């Protein structure tokens, strides 16, 4: 399979032009905040200021950003690579920073580190660190929070865990109000999906009775599908994306199949003037630098 072709999987032409300028601005602001926060984490990790195990979201920011606007006030269960979801759903950035620095003021008191972050006040549930563990946990939460919507992120590797598949199957039995998001970077550490399985998650989800789509990580496209599916839950969106950084740590993977950040900026040029885009980037960088200055 040529992964590069998936940069356009399910794309709707000029979808971004159907959105208001303000909405698109908010999308890009959030995208920038996550990216520049993560850039700061990367630098801090290189300087050995953070705890050793850091799972960066760089390259995959659009996934959580795209889901976040339509699923406000939902419970959120993120995966081990969860900084993006945490920030997209307004988790406290200072608590995240302190957690990554191993401080007592961190969201897990400095004990959980990057893969276990949570902000219970914002309904962001902690992750135990074992991939896919959060999927059955999300089902359990839905058993007692029937009136609430839940977003549950997991990766394409976790999708292969037996308990994840079993939980997805039970979601329809229980009519769980959960939107499952597969953050599909096509890699389990460094093993590509084609070496691990022959099936596609969206197909399996459909066979379980979930509404499901398989799309690329265009933030407007994700927002579009989230809006469409949020009223017919349980549903699953498999989102093809590209991890820019090592599975764990701050080193760089091989060159990206596509660079969503740059593609998004290119699309924004149809909506914004160049200097408006640069200004959003500048203020977001300043925001991130200010957080990490201390």
């Amino acid at each position, binding site marked *: 399979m040529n992964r590069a072709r998936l940069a356009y999987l399910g794309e709707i032409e000029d979808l971004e032009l159907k959105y208001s300028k303000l909405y698109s601005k908010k999308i890009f602001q959030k995208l920038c905040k996550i990216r520049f926060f993560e850039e700061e984490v990367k630098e801090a990790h290189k300087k050995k200021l953070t705890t050793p195990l850091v799972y960066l979201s760089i390259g995959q920011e659009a996934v959580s950003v795209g889901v976040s606007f339509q699923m406000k006030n939902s419970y959120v269960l993120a995966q081990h690579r969860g900084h993006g979801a945490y920030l997209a759903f307004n988790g406290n950035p200072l608590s995240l920073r302190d957690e990554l620095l191993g401080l007592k003021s961190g969201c897990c008191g400095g004990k959980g580190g990057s893969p*276990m972050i949570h902000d219970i006040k914002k309904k962001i549930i902690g992750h135990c660190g074992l991939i896919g563990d959060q999927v059955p946990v999300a089902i359990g939460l839905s058993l007692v929070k029937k009136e609430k919507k839940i977003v549950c992120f997991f990766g394409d590797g976790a999708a292969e865990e037996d308990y994840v598949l079993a939980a997805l199957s039970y979601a329809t039995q229980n009519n769980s109000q959960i939107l499952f998001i597969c953050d599909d970077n096509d890699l389990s550490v460094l093993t590509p999906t084609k070496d691990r399985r022959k099936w596609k998650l969206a197909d399996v989800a459909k066979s379980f009775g979930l509404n499901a789509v398989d799309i690329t990580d265009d933030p407007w496209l994700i927002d579009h599908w989230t809006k469409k599916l949020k009223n017919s839950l349980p549903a699953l969106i498999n989102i093809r994306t590209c991890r820019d950084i090592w599975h764990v740590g701050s080193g760089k993977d091989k060159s990206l199949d596509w660079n969503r950040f740059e593609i998004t900026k290119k699309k924004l040029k149809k909506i914004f003037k160049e200097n408006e885009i640069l200004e959003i980037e500048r203020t977001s960088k300043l925001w991130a630098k200010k957080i990490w200055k201390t």
Partner: protein
Amino acid sequence: MENVAETIRALTKKHLNNGSIIIGQCLSAVGWVQNTIPKQKKGIIELSMTDTAGAGMAVGAAIGGGRPILVLRFQSFLWLNSSPIVMHAAKCKEIFGYSCPVYVRAIASESDSGQGPIHANTYHSIFAHMPGIVVVCPMTPNEFKLIWKKYLASNDPYLVSEHRSSYKINYEIKDIINKKNKITIIAISSARLEALKAVKKLQEKKIRINLINLIWIKPFYLSAIQIQCIKNSKKILIVDNSYEFCGVASTIAQLISAKYNCKTDILGLKEFSPGVAKKYENGTPKCDEIIKKLGLI
């Protein structure tokens, strides 16, 4: 007096009618889990046949404030269910600062019931190994009531190591303590029944020994009277219905000997997997084995 099964059923019924849930596989199947589940629809959630995910769902329900009861019809299923219980529920309070009070009913059955290598044995020891989870082994109606009360008042996950041999018990089993006695048995779970038989048998021979019924494995709890009894003893045998090596009996023996300077020994299952045929049984240590271990035969 109601028996243990009736006690569990009554406590569960009240819990479910207060809006909580009980989840597990085949709960409403023949027997309603040895008659420990109320015959009603309200609050009963039948899981699909998925153990690891099932425990994860119980954990999620507990995080959501549902105070779920997770029922594992055999303790052998604990191996499959362990990950969400020890890796998530047990760590919640310490790592995340919020609680995950899931009540796990893990039901052990006896080796002599033909369960063989599959469903015989008790595995509370492996859970006692992990921090963040309460491990208890009740055997009588009042012990179940007390543990349930404590669970409702706490925000910890509980691993309740039940034993099928307790379900028909409709009486209380009290400690036998006399400061003149120099030998003490500390017994856990179904081993308590055999230990009691041993004490009575020895009594007939005018040999008097103490019997301490241990319910709270973790946190490990002994009453002041029990501690005094241990201090007075010259020899202490800890009898458990799980394997000896790395089991709770060996840990308790070490704790007691270090703290109270007593001579301790342990008795548990032998180091082999039980078989279904009678000659391959490996169950709770029997009365005569206990007496033999004490060197009183």
